């Protein structure tokens, strides 16, 4: 079998298995094993456990369960509600509640590495509050769907971490690279939110407008007792972590472990969560996510090694380079491909499958691997919004049960557009991504 046929057969089988409902991690292993038999090397399938073991025998991967653990600990605490309550008090004007929500998402992203977790944490207080203050339901949901995507761009990020592991790119540099684009996107989201609320207010009659403002003032006075002081230690912790990473004093795995241990202490001492059933649920969730992601990572890495070994990756690279004479056209083709995959697969699965395959092309075309990591991550953020598997949409739907899915999607589309614009901006000005990592030791 020539490399291109092999690529088509392997990826075709993989997609077939995934679409009949076989779990993604198993599909990767299954496709690899079936193709191994097809190309006449049935004896090789007996080494599948060794391949999986070698993929997981990595110091960098240690950070993954630790960040998941840390995220789960922070998620059970009322930290999200505290951040939200504080921000909405700081900016009491009607239009700025949406902007506070975006800010809350950006802040929560800095203590969590996952998008749906960010949506759940900020959205569970943010969406009802915005609806109560008569925000257009689509916009209220869209703000949280869009803002939540920042979870995988602003460090720590599970997606950037996996990208670093599978492409052998510095995870510290990737984390640093995510900060400025993350803030830029947050700013763009905020500008859009402010603008659409301004438009919305302009369309209302004066009576409706004063009623809305009265509701806003009334609710601002009656806010709960959420306090930023209680969340402050988490941010102090993250600041120390980022400084340690920036200065090169500790590896991401060490940082993740210290972060998880410190989060346990913070949750116990600040939020006084001692309830064993809460901890049991939290630990089992961590174990479940860890096992799921590590099994995907193990077989995705084995799968991509298998493809590389059989010349598929280099054949694909030359095919890409020949097919489109211009590297920008190729980059656009990759962007479209990842967008389509993003409609069906979760971000980390796409990253572990696709990034090692594209890396040789990326290097050959002269793109920076750290920059490409951020480019891929913004693309994955779009995948969190695109139906049918746009996970953020479902998390928000679970919070705002009375809002139609159609309305949530319509409200989220502008944020999809802003993310696309974000990819364009970092492509035109790669310094936005690369400046901070270039300053690292």
């Amino acid at each position, binding site marked *: 079998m020539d490399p291109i046929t092999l690529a088509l057969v392997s990826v075709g089988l993989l997609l077939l298995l995934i679409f009949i409902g076989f779990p993604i991690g198993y599909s990767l292993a299954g496709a690899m094993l079936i193709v191994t038999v097809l190309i006449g090397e049935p004896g090789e399938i007996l080494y599948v456990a060794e391949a999986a073991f070698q993929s997981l025998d990595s110091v960098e991967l240690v950070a993954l369960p630790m960040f998941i653990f840390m995220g789960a600990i922070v998620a059970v605490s009322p930290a999200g509600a505290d951040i939200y309550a504080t921000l909405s008090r700081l900016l009491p004007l009607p239009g700025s509640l949406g902007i506070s929500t975006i800010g809350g998402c950006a802040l929560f992203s800095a203590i969590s590495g996952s998008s749906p977790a960010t949506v759940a944490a900020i959205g569970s207080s943010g969406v009802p509050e915005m609806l109560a203050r008569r925000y257009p339901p689509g916009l209220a949901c869209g703000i949280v769907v869009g803002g939540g995507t920042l979870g995988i761009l602003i460090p720590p990020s599970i997606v950037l971490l996996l990208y670093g592991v599978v492409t052998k790119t510095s995870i510290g540099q990737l984390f640093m690279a995510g900060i400025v684009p993350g803030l830029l996107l947050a700013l763009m989201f905020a500008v859009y939110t402010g603008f659409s609320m301004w438009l919305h207010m302009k369309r209302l009659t004066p009576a409706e407008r004063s009623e809305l403002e009265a509701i806003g003032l009334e609710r601002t006075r009656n806010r709960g007792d959420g306090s930023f002081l209680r969340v402050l230690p988490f941010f102090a912790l993250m600041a120390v972590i980022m400084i340690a990473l920036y200065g090169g004093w500790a590896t991401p795995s060490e940082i993740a472990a210290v972060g998880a241990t410190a989060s346990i202490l913070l949750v116990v001492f600040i939020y006084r969560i001692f309830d064993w059933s809460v901890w049991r649920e939290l630990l089992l969730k961590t174990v479940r996510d860890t*096992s799921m992601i590590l099994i995907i990572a193990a077989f995705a890495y084995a799968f991509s090694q298998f493809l590389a070994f059989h010349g598929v990756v280099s054949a694909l690279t030359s095919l890409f380079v020949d097919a489109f004479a211009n590297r920008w056209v190729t980059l656009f083709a990759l962007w479209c491909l990842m967008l389509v995959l993003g409609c069906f697969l979760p971000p980390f699965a796409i990253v572990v499958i696709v990034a090692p395959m594209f890396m040789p092309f990326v290097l050959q075309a002269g793109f920076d691997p750290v920059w490409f990591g951020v480019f891929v991550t913004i693309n994955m953020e779009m995948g969190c919004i695109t139906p049918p598997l746009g996970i953020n949409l479902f998390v928000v739907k679970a919070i705002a049960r009375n809002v139609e899915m159609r309305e949530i999607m319509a409200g989220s589309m502008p944020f999809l557009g802003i993310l696309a614009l974000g990819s364009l901006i970092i492509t035109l000005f790669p310094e936005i991504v690369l400046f901070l990592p270039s300053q690292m030791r």
Partner: protein
Amino acid sequence: MTQSKDLDASPAAAVGSESGSDVPGAGILPFLFAMRRVCAFAAVGAATVSAIAICFACLAITWAVFARGIFGLNTIWEMEASVYLLIYAAFLSAAYTDRSGGQIGVRLVTDRLSGRASRIQRLLLDILALALFSLIAYSGWSMFIHSWETGWRSPTVWGPPLWLPHLAIPLGAGLLVVSLVVDIAIRLSGGTIEEPKAEAH
């Protein structure tokens, strides 16, 4: 976020359909459901061990960071041990993760099927998973036997015997194989197993 039920909590609900003597193989169903409860218990036990492994790895690395940074000690075993603990966490909890719906997949087809078609699809997916994990368990067992018999050690300063981490794969995959065999037997005998809900990631 939708939360799937814990395995140890759901068998009671799943047993609901074991009655009905017109179903072929109904006589064996109570036994199979009892087996299923044993498997679920073992799976939760293994997942708890995995959770302890993750916590221990956090503490070990935190200790290593402070030992190096404050006391200037050399750290030898902490990081390598953590890698192995996480390999254990990944595989030991494989049965729990799989049976409680933690393994994510695309539900485009699954959500559109109902009744008989859905039951057949679930059965086929379980059989595919059984084939895969039997192979992984066998392959892992040979790897363990090889490192056990040759006394193979990790080529690091700490140098632990490699059969220790290698054992994680046959143990974890084996537990999943047994759980799958019981579930497949239940489905073939006409019993119904409540599907865990998919989770958000």
